[in-house]
């Protein structure tokens, strides 16, 4: 098998988080515009220098990325719109990197943002996909809570995970969020409080679920030479993977596409799981964090509960994960949830964390997961990034 081309001298820089709010009267365009403005301000690039745009959003309708070019006054030669929810960050990164690497674009702004009105979440659920509309939403209308309840219940029964295990992840992420200025959830969370929270969809309780909100995340993909000439701290793209509808014959989801792509992902990066200093797992529900810990090779299938018991997940822990607090404590700003982990890993690797810093973070892994089209998440992706110095 021939090795895939590396990303050579393409880098990811200017990690941006636009502060989240629970509800907003503004449209998604506003949050995406804020993301772009922040990218320009911090990179020093003039708007006319942005020749590529990659957008993810659930609430732009009736617009797509095309409408945004006129809305934001951008003249582009490369444009992409990625409807992959929780996997959109990794996918945006790898597409933008290829565009810059090939010369099809020189500066690609990758932005995910959504607004949130009091009824937006329900309206989005009702028409999320054809299969969801026909075969899930009419059944109790529980949304992703119901779908993840099925996966969680099955996972607990098969692999012996307990609510305390999931709770440990949620509690650690809340601890991380306390120092992250943009996290919506700023009260410390004790395991006792997690355990006694109200039930939402058995076995899921309140703190297993993300809170929908409005906000945006963004990053810039440019050449290493340009980043260096502008003095922008950057992260190198060591390897990436995306996979859609992996293991379609599993009767219920207990693994994601990472299990197919893991070896190539680490092989291309030239690192092993033990080399990773900081991790962002996609965390709309803690069960999926456990699946990522297994499928991305940090332990074997079924051993994540034990891995969780043996490790600590705070910024200063043995396995620093979701160091900004993750979606579980920062909030889920729609498609921005697919960027949040990646943006945080870039901040950690470039020495510009907004909250707690992972000591000596040189290799980071960000993973994405998204789109419960029917009974499972279809899209998965992961990227291994390296800091400016260091090996590989």
């Amino acid at each position, binding site marked *: 098998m021939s090795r895939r081309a590396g990303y050579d001298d393409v880098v990811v820089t200017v990690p941006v988080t636009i502060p989240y709010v629970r509800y907003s009267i503004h449209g998604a365009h506003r949050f995406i515009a804020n993301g772009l403005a922040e990218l320009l301000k911090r990179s020093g690039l003039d708007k006319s220098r942005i020749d590529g745009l990659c957008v993810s959003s659930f609430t732009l309708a009736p617009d797509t990325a095309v409408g945004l070019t006129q809305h934001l006054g951008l003249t582009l030669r490369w444009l992409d719109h990625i409807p992959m929810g929780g996997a959109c960050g990794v996918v945006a990164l790898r597409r933008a990197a290829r565009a810059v690497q090939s010369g099809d674009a020189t500066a690609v702004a990758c932005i995910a943002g959504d607004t949130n009105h009091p009824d937006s*979440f*329900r309206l989005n*659920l*009702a*028409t999320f996909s*054809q*299969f969801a*509309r*026909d*075969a*899930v*939403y*009419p*059944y*109790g*209308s*529980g*949304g992703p*809570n*119901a779908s993840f*309840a*099925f*996966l969680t*219940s*099955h996972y607990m*029964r098969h692999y012996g995970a307990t609510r305390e295990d999931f709770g440990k992840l949620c509690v650690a992420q809340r601890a991380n969020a306390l120092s992250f200025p943009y996290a919506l959830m700023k009260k410390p969370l004790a395991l006792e409080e997690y355990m006694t929270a*109200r*039930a*939402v*969809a*058995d*076995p*899921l309780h309140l703190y297993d679920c993300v809170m929908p909100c409005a906000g945006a995340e963004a990053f810039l993909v440019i050449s290493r030479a340009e980043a260096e000439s502008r003095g922008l701290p950057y992260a190198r793209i060591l390897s990436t993977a995306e996979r859609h509808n992996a293991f*379609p014959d599993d*009767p*219920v989801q207990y693994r994601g596409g990472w299990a197919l792509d893991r070896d190539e992902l680490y092989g291309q990066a030239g690192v092993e799981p033990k080399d990773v200093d900081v991790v962002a797992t996609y965390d709309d529900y803690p069960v999926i964090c456990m699946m990522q810990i297994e499928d991305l090779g940090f332990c074997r299938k079924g051993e994540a509960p034990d891995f969780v018991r043996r490790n600590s997940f705070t910024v200063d822990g043995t396995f620093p994960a979701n160091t900004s607090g993750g979606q579980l404590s920062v909030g889920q700003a729609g498609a921005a949830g697919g960027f949040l982990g990646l943006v945080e890993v870039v901040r950690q690797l470039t020495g510009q964390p907004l909250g707690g810093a992972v000591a000596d973070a040189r290799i980071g892994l960000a993973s994405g997961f998204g789109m419960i089209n*029917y*009974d499972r998440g279809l899209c998965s992706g992961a990227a291994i990034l390296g800091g400016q110095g260091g090996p590989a």
Partner: protein
Amino acid sequence: MTRALVRPPRKNPILRTRLPMVPPGSRSRVALGLTAAAALGRFELQVCRDCKTVQYPPREACRVCLSPRLDWRPQDGAGELISETTLRHSNELFYRERLPWRLGLVKLDSGPTLVAHLHADCAPAPARVRVTANIDHAGQAALIALPEKDTPHMADDRQLREMTCDPKFRKILITDAKTALGQAMVEAVVGAGADLVWAGYAEPWKKPPGFERLSAYKQVSLVPLDLTDSRAVKSLAGEIGGRVDILINTADHHRNFGIAAREGVEVARAEMDMNYFGLLRLAQEFAPAMRARGADGQSSAVAWVNLLSIFALSNFPPHGTYSASKAAAMSLAQCLRAELAPAGVRVINVFPGPIEDEWNQSLPPPKIAPARLAADIVAALRGGAEDIFPGDIAQDWLARWRDNPKGLERELAAMPR
């Protein structure tokens, strides 16, 4: 195990009346195949004609070989419950009113994984279950996983009862209780646990054999009702309209012959006056209150049953004008169904073959016995269908009609008269 329902107490007038809501009813066109089968009381999934893969959710092409030739085929529904949840929160008002709500993930033996409502008597996962499709309050097919073997009071399950129109503890109007079918219908719903039965009768001076017997049932109350008399319909609706949970329209005016064997329009007009305008009068007076009571407590307004005829599908020339009146009634019943849908009240259309009665004397057997037909109607109320075709002739004609409607038209035209 589900406990037997107890008779609901009288409504407490200071408590709020729950407004009718329906579960999400939007479906893609291809998914309406599931509804089309459920309307007939069948659970069908798409099966690929080329590679035999069973598909779910409904789709436009085979997930294995991409063939567009997907045929809806009956399924036995046998499978394993592989995971479950109980919702304590829902995004839709219908379910918010009915939480907690149990859902299951079922791997059918035939292949696909289904999300389904989960009957309380199903053991925790992993467990064997059988899946069936019922018409839900939105008028769409909904899958429900039932325990593999029947349990003693399974029909009383709270979630299943939201997908059936069980007569138990319900108040039922039978518009014409004097005919053999009407009498059988009264006895059938009394036997099914109806709380109260209003037995309608017209022309009180005619006393058919057996009719007096009905008043011996303590649940039965005889009420004068003639569907050709607008004032009589309005008057009865004023009296009992706000309490009717199930309305079974058995009134029927049936005469023989088609066009050439008769002079004038009087007979045809009488048929239309009962079979079509009678339904219209009834619907105008009784449907509004039923719409308002679509979610009113344990025993809400839940179903409207129309006695049509298999002759409504395709004209039977020896009973040609009668066929036309039943076709008109069928069309109006579709309108009524659409108007009752927002309240979650199911319209069940009954298309029997020739009934064993006075006006089918000249037709050869098999003919359906009134008691059999009444039992089939009760079964429809307890089940999940909205169109039923009781009797061998109705089933035979339905199969011919579904296969080739023009073929049935020619076959009926060629029948001896």
